[in-house]
C-alpha cells in the first residue's frame, strides 16, 4: 500500500513530522517498507531566467545562453534545446549536480569551443516525465534562484507500507489516518459524503442472477449513470498523486476510480454507458466464456468466476478487472459508475486462477468495508461531476448490505492476562473508540464491556483481537519483559529422546571419522528414487520445482553421490561426506525415518587421502564403509552383540562387495559396500565410491540399567595367552562363521578372537582359503597346563571343523 504525505494529511490533521509518522506506522503494525522523497534527488535544481539566448558560433543546433540563476552573476550555458530562447524561465543545474534522467553527474565543459557552466534541463532529465523535446518552460512568475522542487511542490514523500493480509481497512489512506489518529498523531478528518441528487432514473438496471446458495458471491451492487461528462486528463493534483504511487494516469473517469481505491480502499468500476447494451446482469461466468480485459489480454473464464455482463456478453470480471469493450476513453460522454461488494474467497480464487493481480483484487480478497459500498458510489459521483461535469441519475441498488455486526463480550482484564500490560480502563476504551469500535456497558460493569466491531474490520472476531488492538496502539514496546519461571526450580533436566541423542551423536561420530556433513535436498528425481528403493506414486510431488527434484528421497545416498561427483568435477575427487536426515518409505508419518549415510570417493580413506610419504592411500572400498558404520554404531552405544553382517546388500550395491547389517533376519538396520556399476551409471557419477546407510530408528536401545554403577571390574591374576590357528575352508565360508564357531567352543576362557590373515594361492587347494585366527585365552582361576591348553585348542578345532568344514592347515 502506497500513499504520499500530502495525501495522508487530507485525512489526518497533524503537526507530526515525517519521521514521527513513519516510526509510528511501524510501531502500530503498519510496517513502513520504504519512504521515497522525490524532492531528494532534485534538491539542487533551481529556477533560472534566460537573459539572452544567441546562436552558437560553431554549431547550428546549439545556443549560447546567459542565465540568471539568482546569484547576481549571470552564468554562460550552452544549450541544445530547440525551445531555448531569450526571456524564458527554466530549470538550471550547476556543475556537480547529479542528473537522474541521464544517470550522470554534470561537469564543466567546453562545447564546440564555448565554455558551458551548467545545464538547462528537460523534464526527462529530471525524471518527471518522458518529455525530452525541450527544456522545461516555466511561467514568468517563477522565482529565480528558488529550489525547483519547492516551486513545483514536488516535495511530497511517498510512503509504502507492507500491509499484513488482515487489514483491509488500511488499503485506503483514510484507514491509515484513522490508525495514526488513534495512536495520538493527530485528528482524523471526517469527510461526510452526501448522496448525490439524481434528477432522473438510471436507464440501466442491474440484476443479481444467482442461485440462493450463491447469493453471497455478490451481495450488493450500486450503479449510477452520469450523463454529459467531458472526459479528458484528470487534474494535475490527482495525476501527481497517482504517479507518485506508481500508477499511470489514463483519463479523469478512470483516474477517479483508482483514486478512490487508494483513498478509501474502495475499488470502483466505470463503464462507457453508450457501449453497454441493455441491463447489467451479475452472474457466474459460463464455462469457456471469454473477455478482453483492460490489460489487453483475453481471459477464458470458468463458472467459478463472477462477471458483469450485458447483451454484448461479459463486460467486466467482477472485482478484478474491467473489460476493454465498455471501458471509458476521451470520447465517453455518459458513464456508469459501479460500486459493488464481492465475496473475498471467490475473488481470491478467481484472481489466482486467472493469474491476475490488481488493486481491486488486492482489496476485495481482503474484504472491503461493506458499509462504504454506497458511500463509495456517491464519492465517485461527486468527483465525476467536479472533474468532468455531467448530470447524475438516481442510484440503482441491487441486493443488500450483509449484516456484519460483531459484538464481543470483552473483559478488559484480558489485556493484562494475555500481555502482562496494565493499562487504565479509560485509555483502553479511548483507543477502541478512536479506532471506530463501539464500547458499551461499562457503566454496569467496570471490567466487562461489549465491543462493537466496525464494518471495516472483518479481521476482528474475538477477545484476543480486541486485546491486540489495544496493545498495538499502546505500543508492544511498553510490555515489560518478564522472566519465565522455571518449571522445576532446579538444575535443568535432560530433554533429548534416545533417537534425538543418537541423531546428534551420529553426526559427531561420523565427523570424527574425517567425514564432512552435507545437507542435501529432501527430493530427488524419479529415476534416483526408483534406483534406491523408492519412487512410489504417493511420494511424488504434484508441483515439483524441477524435474530432478520430483520425488521424496528413499535414501540419503543419491544426494550424497551426486554431491561427491560435483566436487570431483571441481577437481576434488577424494571426498568423504555424510548426512544424517530423514528419508521417506511412504507418505504416512511413521514412514519417515532418520537415517545416517556416508560415502567415500577416490582415495578418501579414514587415515587420509592421496599420496603421502608415509604411504599412498589406495582406492576406498567396502571395508572403509564398514569401518565408518561400525564406528558410528559403537559411538551410539548400540549393543553390538546381536549384530550380524550378512553378505550382499541392497540392489544398488555391488552384490559381491556389500553387506547387510541386521539384528536377526527381520531387523535389518542398513547396508554398506561399494556401489553397483549400474547405480553409478544411472546417477552419472564415477567411482571408486563406497558408502553405508543405517536407519537410526531401527537400532536397538541399550539395555536399561537400574543404576549408573558400572559392573564390577574383574582382573585375572594370570597371564593371558594367545594361540594361532590356520583354518583351510571353502572360499564361500564367511570369516564370521569361523569366529562364531571359535567363540562357542570355549565361552568362559576366550577373551578375544581376531583374524590376522586371509590367504589364497600356492599351497592352498583351488576353491579354498586359509584363515589365520588368533585366539586370546584368559585363565581365571589358575595357570593353564600344556595339556589343558591342548584340550581347549582341540575343542576349538573340532567346533570350527564341525560348523564350517574347516581343516587345520598343515
Amino acid at each position, binding site marked *: 500500500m502506497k500513499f504520499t504525505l500530502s495525501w495522508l494529511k487530507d485525512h489526518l490533521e497533524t503537526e507530526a513530522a515525517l519521521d514521527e509518522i513513519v516510526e509510528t506506522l*511501524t510501531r502500530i*503494525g503498519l*510496517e513502513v517498507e520504504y519512504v521515497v522523497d522525490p524532492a531528494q534527488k532534485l534538491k539542487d535544481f533551481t529556477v533560472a531566467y534566460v537573459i539572452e539566448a544567441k546562436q552558437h558560433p560553431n554549431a547550428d543546433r546549439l545556443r549560447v545562453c546567459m542565465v540568471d540563476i539568482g546569484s547576481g552573476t549571470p552564468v554562460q550555458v550552452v544549450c541544445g534545446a530547440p525551445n531555448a530562447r531569450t526571456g524564458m524561465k527554466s530549470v538550471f543545474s550547476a556543475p556537480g549536480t547529479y542528473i537522474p534522467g541521464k544517470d550522470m553527474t554534470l561537469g564543466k565543459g567546453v562545447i564546440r569551443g564555448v565554455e558551458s557552466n551548467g545545464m538547462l534541463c528537460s523534464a526527462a532529465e529530471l525524471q518527471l516525465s518522458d518529455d525530452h523535446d525541450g527544456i522545461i518552460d516555466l511561467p514568468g512568475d517563477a522565482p529565480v534562484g528558488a529550489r525547483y522542487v519547492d516551486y513545483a511542490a514536488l516535495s511530497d514523500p511517498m510512503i509504502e507500507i507492507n500491509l*499484513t*493480509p488482515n487489514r483491509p481497512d488500511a488499503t485506503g489512506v483514510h484507514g491509515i489516518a484513522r490508525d495514526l489518529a488513534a495512536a495520538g498523531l493527530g485528528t482524523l478528518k471526517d469527510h461526510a459524503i452526501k448522496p448525490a441528487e439524481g434528477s432522473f432514473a438510471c436507464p440501466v438496471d442491474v440484476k443479481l442472477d444467482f442461485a440462493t446458495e450463491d447469493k453471497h458471491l455478490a451481495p450488493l451492487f450500486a450503479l449510477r449513470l452520469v450523463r454529459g461528462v467531458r472526459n479528458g486528463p484528470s487534474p494535475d493534483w490527482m495525476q501527481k498523486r497517482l504517479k507518485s504511487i506508481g500508477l499511470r494516469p489514463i483519463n479523469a473517469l478512470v483516474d477517479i476510480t483508482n483514486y478512490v481505491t487508494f483513498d478509501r480502499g474502495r475499488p470502483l468500476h466505470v463503464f462507457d454507458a453508450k457501449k453497454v447494451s441493455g441491463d447489467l446482469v451479475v452472474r457466474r461466468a459460463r464455462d469457456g466464456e471469454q473477455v478482453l480485459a483492460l490489460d489487453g489480454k483475453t481471459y477464458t473464464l470458468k463458472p467459478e468466476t463472477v462477471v458483469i455482463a450485458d447483451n454484448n456478453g461479459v463486460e467486466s470480471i467482477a472485482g478484478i478487472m474491467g473489460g476493454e469493450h465498455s471501458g471509458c476513453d476521451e470520447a465517453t460522454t455518459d458513464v456508469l459508475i459501479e460500486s459493488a461488494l464481492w465475496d473475498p474467497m471467490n475473488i*481470491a480464487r478467481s484472481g489466482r486462477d486467472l493469474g491476475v493481480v490488481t488493486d481491486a483484487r488486492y482489496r476485495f480478497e481482503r474484504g472491503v468495508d461493506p458499509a462504504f459500498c454506497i458511500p463509495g458510489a456517491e464519492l465517485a459521483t461527486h468527483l465525476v461531476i467536479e472533474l468532468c461535469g455531467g448530470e447524475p441519475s438516481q442510484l440503482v441498488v441491487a441486493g443488500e448490505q450483509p449484516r456484519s455486526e460483531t459484538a464481543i463480550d470483552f473483559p478488559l482484564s484480558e489485556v*493484562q*492476562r*494475555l*500481555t*502482562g500490560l496494565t493499562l487504565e480502563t479509560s485509555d483502553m476504551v479511548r483507543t477502541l473508540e478512536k479506532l471506530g469500535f463501539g464500547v458499551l456497558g461499562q457503566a454496569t460493569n467496570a471490567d466487562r464491556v461489549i465491543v462493537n466491531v466496525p464494518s471495516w474490520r472483518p*479481521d476482528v472476531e*474475538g477477545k*484476543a483481537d480486541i486485546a*491486540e488492538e489495544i*496493545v*498495538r496502539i499502546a505500543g508492544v514496546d511498553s*510490555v*515489560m*519483559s*518478564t522472566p*519465565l519461571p*522455571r*518449571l522445576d526450580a532446579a538444575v535443568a533436566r535432560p*530433554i533429548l529422546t534416545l533417537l*534425538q541423542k543418537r541423531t546428534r551423536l551420529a*553426526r559427531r561420530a561420523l*565427523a*570424527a*571419522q*574425517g567425514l*564432512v*556433513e*552435507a*545437507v*542435501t*535436498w*529432501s*527430493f530427488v528425481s524419479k529415476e534416483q528414487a526408483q534406483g534406491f528403493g523408492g519412487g512410489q*506414486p*504417493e511420494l*511424488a*510431488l*504434484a508441483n*515439483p*520445482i524441477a524435474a530432478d527434484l520430483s520425488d*521424496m528421497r528413499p535414501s540419503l545416498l543419491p544426494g550424497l553421490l551426486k*554431491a*561427491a561427483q*560435483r566436487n570431483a568435477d*571441481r577437481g*576434488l575427487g577424494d571426498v568423504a*561426506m555424510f548426512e544424517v536426515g*530423514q528419508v*521417506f518409505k511412504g*507418505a504416512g*508419518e511413521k514412514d*519417515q525415518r532418520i537415517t545416517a549415510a556416508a560415502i567415500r570417493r577416490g582415495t578418501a580413506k579414514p587415515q*587420509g587421502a592421496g599420496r603421502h610419504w*608415509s604411504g599412498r592411500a589406495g582406492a576406498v572400498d567396502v571395508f572403509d564403509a564398514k569401518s565408518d558404520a561400525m564406528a558410528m554404531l559403537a559411538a551410539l552405544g548400540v549393543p553390538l552383540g546381536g549384530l550380524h553382517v550378512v553378505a550382499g546388500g541392497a540392489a544398488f550395491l555391488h552384490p559381491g562387495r556389500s553387506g547387510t547389517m541386521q539384528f536377526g533376519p527381520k531387523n535389518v538396520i542398513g547396508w554398506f559396500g561399494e556401489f553397483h556399476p549400474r547405480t553409478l551409471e544411472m546417477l552419472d557419477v564415477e567411482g571408486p565410491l563406497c558408502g553405508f546407510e543405517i536407519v537410526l530408528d531401527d537400532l536397538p536401545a541399550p539395555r536399561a540399567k537400574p543404576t549408573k554403577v558400572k559392573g564390577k571390574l574383574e582382573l585375572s591374576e594370570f597371564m593371558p595367552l594367545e594361540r594361532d590357528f590356520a583354518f583351510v575352508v571353502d572360499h564361500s565360508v564367511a570369516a564370521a562363521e569361523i569366529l562364531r564357531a571359535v567363540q562357542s567352543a570355549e565361552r568362559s576362557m576366550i577373551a578375544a578372537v581376531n583374524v590376522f590373515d586371509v590367504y589364497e594361492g600356492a599351497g592352498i587347494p583351488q576353491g579354498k582359503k586359509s584363515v589365520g585366527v588368533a585366539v586370546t585365552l584368559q585363565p581365571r582361576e589358575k595357570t593353564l597346563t600344556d595339556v589343558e591348553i591342548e584340550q581347549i585348542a582341540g575343542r576349538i578345532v573340532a567346533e570350527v571343523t564341525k560348523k564350517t568344514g574347516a581343516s587345520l592347515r598343515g
Partner: protein
Amino acid sequence: MSDLLSLESSTLADIAGAADEAQLEAVRVAALGKKGSISALLATLGKMSPDERKTAGAAINALKDKVGEALNARRTILKDAALEVRLASETVDVTLPVRDAPSETGRIHPISQVMDELTAIFADMGFSIAEGPDIESDDYNFTKLNFPAGHPAREMHDTFFFQPDAQPGSLGERKLLRTHTSPVQVRTMLSSKPPIRVICPGRTYRCDSDQTHTPMFHQVEGLVIDQGAHLGHLKWVLEEFCKAFFEVPNVKMRFRPSFFPFTEPSMEVDIQCRRSGGEIRFGEGEDWLEILGCGMVHPNVLRNCGVDPDVYQGFAWGMGIDRIAMLKYGMPDLRPFFEGDVRWLSHYGFKPLDMPSLAGGLSA
C-alpha cells in the same frame, strides 16, 4: 714384579685399544678368563710359600682389580659410544608432515551446529524438543492453525502438494510438505497436556527458489502453554535467547505488531545491529534486522487442539535456522547450504569436538 708391571701395562693398553665390546671381551678373556694371563698368575699362588703368597697374592689381586675396573670403565665408554652410533643411525627428519587427524578434517554442517546450540539454550530453560513428519496433512499445516480455506494467507505459503490419495475408501486427501514447523505445535498440544514448553526444529518446504529462497529450508519454533504465560514472558524468552545465541551481553529488540493466522496478538521482531561490509554485529548500531515472528497462540488454535483458551494461554515464535546461522556466522548466501561443496562445508562447518554447551560457550 717387573713381569706383573709389564702384564699390567700390556693388558691396560689392550683394554684402552679395544674398539668395541667384542674386542674388549676378548681382552677380558685373555686376562681374566679361565686360561687368562692373570688367572694363570693366580693359579701359581698355590705353589708358593705363605710369605711369597702374601706378597705376590696382594700384587696379583691388585692387578686383577685394576684390570677389572679398567674393563668396566672401557665397557661403559664403548656402550655409550655404540648407543650414540645407534641413535644417530636412527635419526629421522622430524619436519616431515604427518597426516591430519580425521577429527581435524571432519565437519559438522552449520545447520546441525546451530540446532545443537538451540538445544543447549532451550534445554536450560526447560524446553523439550518436539518433532513431526515433513509430509503433513492440510488440516495440521493450515486448518488447525486458523488458516481459513481459500484465505490469502494460505496462498502466501507456496505449498508443495502430493497427488490426492487415490486409495479406495480414502477421502481423497491431498497431503503436502509442511510449509512451516507449526504443525508440530498442533501435534504437541493434541498429544500432551499443559504446561507445555517445546521447541520444534525441522525441515520445511515452499516451492520458491531464487537468490534468497530455497525450496527446502529449516525452521525452529517455540511453544509455551500454561495458565499465565503472557507477552512479557515471550519478550523475555526471546531476549534471553538472542543474547545467548549471538553470545553478546545485551541485545536491543523491537517488537512490531504484525499478522499471522495462528497468533493474536502477533508480532515481528527486529534485532538491533550494525552492518559494515558483509559483517553484522549485534548489540550495537542503528540498523534493525527482522529475525523472527511471534505472538500469543490464537484462541482458535488452542480450541482446535483441545486446549481451553479461557483456562490456558501461551505464546509461540518461529524463525529460520539457516537464517540465524547466516547472521551469526556470516555466510552471505543460502543456496550453498544445500550444495554439498566440501570447500564451503570445510570453511563454514564445525569440528566434531566443537560441542556447543552453555558451560563452555556455544561457539569456540
